[in-house]
């Protein structure tokens, strides 16, 4: 490296320091402290100089590094690791992943907390897979997906508490309701695309939430719905002391009563639901309707010129995506036993979209990786409380910088003429 380069990078880092000073000076340097009769400003210039110094040093190191044309080793290996995942490896990865998921509850280190996190991650994986149909395949950016999650949860909760029907009857009904709402949303937005579609779907998500808050007679408003029945193991409830004439799970199988039974059952339930979503998506992608979705994402005008009906094609995408959101919603309701509109805010939609986009649009394995990464990281930093959203944002930035197209962005054709060459 030449001397000129070093001087240049030093100048650049001094400039960075100047900007840092301008920013940190007022924000960190002048601290307001309330004391008795008013607010007082306490300067803390020491911290400011420490921060500015760090900025200068960091910038200088980055400059020197890039002048040598070497990347930070950790990032380059990380990014090449992800890109080297070929289709074949992805298949192995999927099989090991599923096997791991199946034995996970019985691993020695698995405790209640791990199970809860795993259930949460699986719920997001299922939502991600559901949304992947709409966003990844059909290319319709839906920022209000949480609406269908809410419709599913409330349909399940209302039907189950009013009629007392079992989980296995309510689940498909909730899916049907959500699909119906998907079509309801689909009709007005048929002509919209891109940003406009995103805005309208965002609005739809909020409308559903506000209806849930205000329609007190039906939804119980902000108080939410309590006492949602828990799922039973094919008719065997998970109770310590079952009602008259009932046999509970632990009695039937002659086990010691444990709350973990229900948790493990819920875990397998969401695992199966998620895998069904995945299987369905992988199948339907290879059918004419799946190809039409992707074609619509690529070029709507060309689709019309080939006689593909864009209305029906879009509506099926919305309906099927919404249906899986509804299934996930009813699972959420039965797991929590209590739902309120607070669980269905915009941030949920944003997280699901983030999972799909960061995973690599249309990639099923990518959704899994992104869910584990995003939800896992936010959980890991739970001790930091409000700062854990910084970890979430940081994770998103990292993926966007090193894998701008998503973790797994390669698309495999749905049908091959010459068979698999590799």
């Amino acid at each position, binding site marked *: 490296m030449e001397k000129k380069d070093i001087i240049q990078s030093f100048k650049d880092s001094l400039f960075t320091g100047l900007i840092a000073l301008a920013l940190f000076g007022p924000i960190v340097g002048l601290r307001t402290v309330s004391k008795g009769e008013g607010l007082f400003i306490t300067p803390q210039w020491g911290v400011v100089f420490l921060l500015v110094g760090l900025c200068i040093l960091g910038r200088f190191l980055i400059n020197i590094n890039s002048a040598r044309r070497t990347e930070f080793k950790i990032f380059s290996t990380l990014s090449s690791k992800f890109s080297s995942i070929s289709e074949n490896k992805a298949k192995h990865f999927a099989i090991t992943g599923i096997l791991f998921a199946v034995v996970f509850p019985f691993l020695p280190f698995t405790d209640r907390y791990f199970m809860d996190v795993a259930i949460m991650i699986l719920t997001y994986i299922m939502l991600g897979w559901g949304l992947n149909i709409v966003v990844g395949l059909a290319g319709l950016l839906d920022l209000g997906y949480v609406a269908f999650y809410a419709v599913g949860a409330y349909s399940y909760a209302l039907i189950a508490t009013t009629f007392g029907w079992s989980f296995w009857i309510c689940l498909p009904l909730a899916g049907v309701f959500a699909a119906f709402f998907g079509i309801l949303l689909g009709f007005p937005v048929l002509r919209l695309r891109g940003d406009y579609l995103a805005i309208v779907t965002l609005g739809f998500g909020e409308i559903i939430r506000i209806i849930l808050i205000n329609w007190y007679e039906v939804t119980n408003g902000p108080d939410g719905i309590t006492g949602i029945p828990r799922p039973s193991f094919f008719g065997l409830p998970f109770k310590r002391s079952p009602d008259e004439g009932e046999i509970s799970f632990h009695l039937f199988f002659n086990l010691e009563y444990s709350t973990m039974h229900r948790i493990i059952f819920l875990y397998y339930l969401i695992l199966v639901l998620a895998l069904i979503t995945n299987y369905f998506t992988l199948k339907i992608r290879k059918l004419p309707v799946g*190809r039409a979705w992707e*074609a619509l994402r*690529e070029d709507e005008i*060309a689709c019309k*010129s*080939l006689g593909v009906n864009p209305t029906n094609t879009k509506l099926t995408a919305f309906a099927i995506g919404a249906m899986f959101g509804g299934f996930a919603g009813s699972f959420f309701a039965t797991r929590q036993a209590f739902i309120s509109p607070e669980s269905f805010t915009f941030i949920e939609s944003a997280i699901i979209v983030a999972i799909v986009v960061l995973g690599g649009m249309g990639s099923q394995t990518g959704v899994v990786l992104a869910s584990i990464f995003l939800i896992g990281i936010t959980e890991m930093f739970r001790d930091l409380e409000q700062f854990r959203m910084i970890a979430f944002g940081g994770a998103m930035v990292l993926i966007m910088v090193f894998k701008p197209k998503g973790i797994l962005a390669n698309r495999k054709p749905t049908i091959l*003429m010459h068979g698999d060459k590799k």
Partner: protein
Amino acid sequence: MSNLLSVENLTMKFGGLTAIDDLSFDAKNNQITSIIGPNGAGKTTVFNCLTGFYKPTNGQMFLHKKNSKISLRKYTDFKIAYVAKVARTFQNIRLFPAMSVLENLLVAQHNELMVASGYSLFGLLNLKTYRDKEQLAVDKAKYWLDIIGLTHRADDNAGDLPYGDQRKLEIVRAMCIEPRLLCLDEPAAGLNPKESAELNKLLKFIKTEKQTGILLIEHDMSVVMGISDHVVVLNYGKKIFEGTAKQTKNSKEVIEAYLGVDE
């Protein structure tokens, strides 16, 4: 030779601008009819009216069947391709770039495959009836790929093909819907002379072997003069000449429209 398409008194106005003014012409079965004219003459607008992208202000367009004729005005949007079987290509290529070549050709057979898959139900159950139909669709795609010599690239993304191949692919994709009338909007734009010659061969093949009438907008005169059976010349939305390629070449009006009037 029987009439395939007749356009009668077609007028298209955009606000105060008359893009097409009282245009009438016929196109015959198994013939290549070219529409030529200077830039802005309204050629693409004629296509957009024919293929349902615009609703004409006035006039009629009929597609003749054996003993009946259907009015194209009745169909809009995707129904032109689906029901009336009028296919088109675009001036700026509109393939599905991130999908494979084979998938592009299968999307063109969407409607038959949709019925065959029982609106996805049989397909999800993986019934044999659907798999057989899908194989037929792949065979049809292979037939067309063999003709344009792209079979070896069937599994590559359409967007990765060279420009000339993308043009040809768009044409055979339109042919996969088995159209009665094929409308080509500047298929030779951006092609080198060798590729233009290949295009001529392909269009002649479609004309003679496929009972399909071709309507062609083109600026490349080597293509127009080489393969057209009939030429319609437009200028400022009006038809100024109609005749064979040879007649067109020698027509005073056409030369004036392109080169201007001698002072």
